[in-house]
């Protein structure tokens, strides 16, 4: 059953040096506040997993906490490059970054296999792409009925998954709505789960498009209003597109980024 905890304590107890950590949210409900707490606590040597490692992972990578990235699209959506990500890949700064690179369909199915506690998933994908030649988590299987060859991807089972949701109740049951991406799969694939929420309500009222995660699949809930900023929480905030635009010059330069980190996160 989920405990309601402070963000500091939940992060300290659930996320450790060397962990494989997934922070999911497909543009919507991205758990920025939890990522900043990871930076404040200097939890390092992380393997980060995320379909779209946008600005949130640019910050963690720039802070030097990341050893490896498992992903399928690494950009600042609608703006351009992730400069801290590029600097790490291209120049090894502040440290080299190992990549396990996939397509979206592959990553989504890796989470599905993880949530289903299967060792792999099958899809029509990766054909003719050089992606499959650079990873050991893509292979092939033959259909035992038709003989057709299909792609296989290895399951993803993070040590910890962190998501942001709109509401929890006092028992730690959580509801999110709007674009819910791959969060249910990322939660159910993980060994440990932290959910930050906009607020605790007396009881969850089912919403159109609502996804409810029972408290007994969650380890800790932390109340962090605005915890998805500059991403958004439908019904609570709107996406701060200006922040994403402004991130480009901040992140382009190592020193400017360092100053931002010091002033904003620490």
């Amino acid at each position: 059953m989920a405990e309601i905890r402070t963000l500091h304590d939940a992060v300290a107890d659930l996320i450790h040096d060397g962990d494989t950590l997934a922070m999911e949210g497909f543009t919507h409900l991205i758990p920025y506040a939890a990522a900043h707490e990871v930076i404040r606590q200097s939890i390092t040597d992380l393997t980060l997993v995320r379909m779209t490692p946008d600005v949130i992972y640019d910050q963690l990578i720039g802070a030097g906490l990341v050893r490896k990235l498992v992903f399928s699209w690494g950009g600042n959506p609608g703006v351009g490059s992730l400069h801290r990500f590029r600097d790490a890949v291209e120049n090894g700064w502040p440290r080299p970054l190992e990549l396990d690179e996939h397509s979206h369909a592959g990553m989504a199915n890796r989470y599905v296999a993880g949530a289903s506690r299967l060792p792999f998933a099958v899809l029509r994908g990766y054909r003719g792409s050089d992606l499959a030649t650079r990873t050991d988590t893509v292979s092939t299987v033959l259909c035992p009925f038709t003989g057709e060859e299909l792609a296989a991807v290895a399951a993803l089972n993070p040590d910890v998954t962190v998501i942001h949701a709109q509401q929890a109740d006092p028992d730690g049951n959580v509801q999110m709505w709007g674009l819910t991406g791959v969060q249910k799969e990322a939660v159910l694939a993980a060994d440990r789960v932290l959910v930050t929420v906009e607020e605790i309500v007396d009881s969850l009222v089912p919403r159109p498009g609502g996804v409810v995660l029972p408290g007994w699949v969650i380890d800790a809930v932390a109340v962090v209003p605005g915890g998805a900023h500059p991403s958004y929480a439908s019904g609570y905030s709107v996406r701060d597109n200006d922040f994403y635009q402004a991130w480009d010059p901040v992140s382009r330069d190592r020193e400017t980024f360092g100053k931002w980190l010091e002033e904003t996160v620490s």
Partner: protein
Amino acid sequence: MSAYTGDELMEVNAARALAGAKTCFVGIGLPSTAANLARATLNPGLVLIYESGTIGSKPTRLPLSIGDGELAETADAVVPVPEMFNYWLQGGRIDFGFLGAAQVDRFANINTTLVDRGPDRPAGRLPGAGGAPEIAANCRQVLMVLRHSPRNFVAKLDFVTTLGHGAGPQDRKRLGMRGAGPVAVITDLGILRPDPDTAELTLTDLHPGVSVEQIRQATGWKLRTAPEPRTTAPPTEAELTALRTLKSAGKQGR
């Protein structure tokens, strides 16, 4: 008639390529501009599908990201991302996939992963695949839109992120891919289409005022030209108005 830019020529012609389309899987950026312009002009019933999980989005302004709130709020249905890729895209439900690219080669293969910047510099890192490999594999047809330059239209890709036609017309079949693959590459200079026999991209349409020579100069391989390349119709007043309205609404929305 208003003056118009090369980008506007590209965007208007990309939208026109969606005439008659029922459903379109939309990449962010130029493809999203084209698909939204198609909805605003010649194809108001076009069903826009974004990989964030929205089916039938009807945004009134150009979304900055594939996850903007308006895409979900105006959608007929919002589905989880795995369902989108497995049931809808892989399920063969979608007519057109609309993709951008950093590099494209003569067989419409796509690179969005990395670019070689010479022996003394590390490869330049790009965002990566996103949904493109499976969009190109599983949509019935694929459209591409990107600016025309020798840097983008290259003889050899530095990395094959997404298969277009491989090395010729047999490759998609050999790999068991079910969609027809790229059927048109729309640029700010004209339109290239795969030759029915060789699958090689061939210049079939020039935008008004553009010469064949100019397009050849902007292409990194020896570009073949259809026997009688057409000239695209200039953008209409209605198309330009709709395009500019969409874009300025998008900027205001930020």
